[in-house]
C-alpha cells in the first residue's frame, strides 16, 4: 500500500503538538519571561527600567553569596555521588542476598524517608537537631559527649553538614530502590560463570555485576545531580540558607532575592544562570558517563 509521506508527517506533527505545546508553555515561555525580567530592575510589581546585563555582571563579579550557593550545590552533588550512592549500592547488594521476607521488610524501612512529606522530614530533623530538647544532643550528653552537643543547624561549623545530612537521608531510599531493582535483573548465571572461572565475590561484583549496572548507575547519578541542583524545600524549611548564608543554595537564594528582597529582576537573572548551569552540568555528567561506559 502506497503512503503519502507528507500526510504521515502531518499526522506526526499533530500527535506531537499537544506535548510540545505543554512544553512550550510550561518551560520556554516562563524562561523567556525570566530572560526578559533579568534585564530589568523590576521589583515584581510597579514600574521598572531596563538595565541591560547589569544584573548578570553583579551576580558574577560582586555577589559572594551566589558563589557560595553554587559551591554548596557542588558539595551536595559530591556527597550524593560519593557517599550516598556507594552506601545505597552496598546496602542494595546486601538486601539482594537476603531472604525475600527480610529484604521486603528492610526495603520498606529504608524507603520510608522518601515517601514522607518534605515538611515532615524537615521538621523532624529540626527537632532532632534542636540543641536543647533534640534527641541527638540528649543522647550525646547522656554518654558524656557534652562538648560536641552543639546547635547543629545554627552553628556555623556544623550547619552545612547538618542540612546535607537531612537531604541525603531523605533521598537515600530512592537510590537504594533503583540499585535493588537493577541488581535483581543481573542474571545469576553470569555471576556463577564468573565464580566457576575462579573469580572471588568481590571480583565477580567488580567485573560482572557493576558493568552490567552501569546504565542504572549513570541514571541515578544524573538524577542526583539534577535533584541536588534544584534542592530548595528542605533548606527553606530548615535553615532558610542561614546562619549568614552559610547553607545557601541556588534555589533558595533566587527565591529570596525575587520575593523577599523584592529584587525580581536580579532573581530572574539568577534563575536564568541557574538553568544554564543545570543544563551544562547535566550535559557534562551525561557525556562523562558515556565516556566511562565505553
Amino acid at each position, binding site marked *: 500500500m502506497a503512503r503519502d509521506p507528507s500526510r504521515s508527517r502531518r499526522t506526526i506533527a499533530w500527535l506531537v503538538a499537544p506535548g510540545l505545546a505543554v512544553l512550550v508553555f510550561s518551560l520556554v515561555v516562563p524562561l523567556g519571561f525570566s530572560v526578559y525580567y533579568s534585564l530589568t530592575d523590576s521589583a515584581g*510589581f510597579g514600574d521598572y527600567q531596563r538595565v541591560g546585563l547589569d544584573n548578570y555582571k553583579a551576580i558574577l563579579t560582586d555577589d559572594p553569596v551566589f558563589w557560595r550557593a553554587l559551591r554548596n550545590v557542588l558539595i551536595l552533588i559530591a556527597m550524593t555521588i560519593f557517599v550516598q550512592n556507594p552506601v545505597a549500592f552496598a546496602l542494595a547488594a546486601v538486601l539482594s542476598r537476603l531472604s525475600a521476607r527480610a529484604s521486603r521488610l528492610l526495603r520498606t524501612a529504608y524507603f520510608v524517608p522518601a515517601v514522607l512529606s518534605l515538611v515532615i522530614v524537615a521538621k523532624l530533623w529540626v527537632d532532632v537537631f534542636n540543641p*536543647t530538647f533534640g534527641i541527638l544532643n540528649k543522647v550525646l550528653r547522656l554518654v558524656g559527649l557534652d562538648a560536641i552537643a552543639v546547635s547543629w543547624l545554627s552553628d556555623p561549623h556544623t550547619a552545612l553538614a547538618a542540612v546535607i545530612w537531612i537531604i541525603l537521608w531523605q533521598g537515600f531510599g530512592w537510590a537504594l530502590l533503583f540499585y535493588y531493582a537493577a541488581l535483581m535483573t543481573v542474571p545469576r548465571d553470569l555471576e556463577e560463570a564468573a565464580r566457576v572461572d575462579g573469580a572471588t565475590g568481590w571480583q565477580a561484583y567488580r567485573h560482572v555485576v557493576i558493568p552490567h549496572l552501569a546504565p542504572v548507575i549513570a541514571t541515578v547519578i544524573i538524577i542526583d545531580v539534577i535533584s541536588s541542583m534544584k534542592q530548595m524545600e528542605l533548606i527553606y524549611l530548615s535553615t532558610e540558607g542561614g*546562619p*549568614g548564608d552559610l547553607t545557601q543554595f541556588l534555589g533558595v537564594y533566587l527565591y529570596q532575592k525575587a*520575593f523577599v528582597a523584592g529584587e525580581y529582576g536580579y532573581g530572574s537573572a539568577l534563575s536564568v544562570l541557574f538553568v544554564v548551569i543545570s543544563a551544562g552540568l547535566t550535559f557534562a555528567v551525561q557525556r562523562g558517563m558515556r565516556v566511562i561506559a565505553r
Partner: protein
Amino acid sequence: MKTSTFFIFACALAVCGSLQASAESKITLKMGDNLPDRNNTWGAIVEQINGEFKAAHPGTEIVTESYPDQPYQQKIKIYATAKQLPDLFKFWSVTSLLKPLVDGGFVAPLERAAFETMGYRPGALDANTYNGKLYGIPVSMDFWVIYYNKKLFKDAGIDHVPTTLDELYAMVPRLKAKGLIPMTTDGKDAWPLSITFDQLVWRISGERGLPGKALERKIKFTDPVFVQAARELQQLVKSGLFQEDLMVSDYGAARNLFGQGKAAMYLMGSWELGLGADKSFSNEFRANVDVFKFPTVKNGKGNVDDLMGWYGGNYVISAASKNLALDKQYLQFYARRFPELAWDKQATLPAQTVKARPSDTPVAQSILRIAAEAKATSGTPAVDLATPRFKSDHENAIRELCSSLISPEDFVKKLDAAADKAVKK
C-alpha cells in the same frame, strides 16, 4: 437519538445557568492576614468580626488566607506580582512595607474622615497617610518589651525584674541552673534582632531616631554609637541569654518555648499581650506571665521609658477589588468592632484608646502602664524604613552578627553599604 442528545445538552445548559445565577447572588470577599491561629486571641476575634459582618450582610462569603509573618509578606508580594491580591488584607504601614504597593497603585485610598471619629490614638492614622491620602487603618499599638514568667523567676530566686542589661546578664546563670532557657525570641526571621539593635542604639545615645537619620545618610552607621550597640547585641547572644538555636528558631518556636514554661523571658512586641489569655497554654502560665521594659545600658544616655513603638497591622483594600463599596463597609465595621473585642478578650493593645478595667489580665495592665509611662516612641523600626532590599540586607547582616560570623565593625559597614544602595534606589 438526536432528540435525546439535544435534551441532555439543554439540561446541562440549564444547570450551568442556575449555578451561575446562584454564584452571582453571593459575593465572596477574599482576605489575607498573618494570624494563622483562628481559635485563639487575635485570629479568633477576626473570625468573630467576619461572622458578625456576614450576618449583617446576607449573601456575603469571606475566605481568608493566613500565614505566619514572613511567609505572609512573601505571599502578598507574589500575589501583587501576579495581580491576584485579596480584596482586603492586613499589611504593614506606609512608612514601611506598604509603600511599594501604594506606589504601584495596588492599594485603594480610603476616606479619612470616616475613621477620624473612631477614637484612634493621636498620630495613629498619620502613619498610613501618604501624599495626603489614607491608605489603611492601623489596628494595634506596638512597642518592644520583654515578657517574663513570674513563677520561673521566683523558682530561680529572682525577686525583681532587671532594669539594666548588667542585671539581665546576672540572671543568666541562675536561670540556666534551673534548666531554663533565660530568654527566647525569633532569630530566624531576624527583624526582632533589628528592632533590639535600634532599641540599644537609643538606650546608648539617648537620641531618638538615629537609625532613621543614618538611613537618610545624614550620619553614618559606622559612627561609634552603632558599633557599640552592635557589640552589645552580639554580647547578648554570646552570653547565652537566648535559646541555643536562636538563629534557626522562628516566631512560633520562640513563643511556644516561653508559653510552655521552658523559657523564663520572651523578647517581643506588645501585640503578644494575648499570651495572658491564650488558652493553648496552661492556666499556671497565663496567671504568671507579665512584662517589663527593655533595660537600660550601663553609661547609656537613654531612658527606660524611650519605647521602640509604632502603629502596626494595617488593613488595606486592593485597588483591583471588584467589591470596593463592600470592602469599605467591612473596614468601618472592623474599625468599630476590633478595639472593643481585642480589649475585651485581652488579645492586643488596639490603635484606638481603651479603658483599663479591674478585670484586665496582669500582663494587659502592665502593657497599659508601660504605654502610659512612655516618654517618647520611635516610629517604624529602621529595618522597615527603606526598600525591601535594605530590609533583606539588614536582616542578613544582623544574622551574621548574631552568629558571630562578622564583627560589630563589619556589621555597621554592611549597614552603610546597604543604606547607600537604598538611597540610590
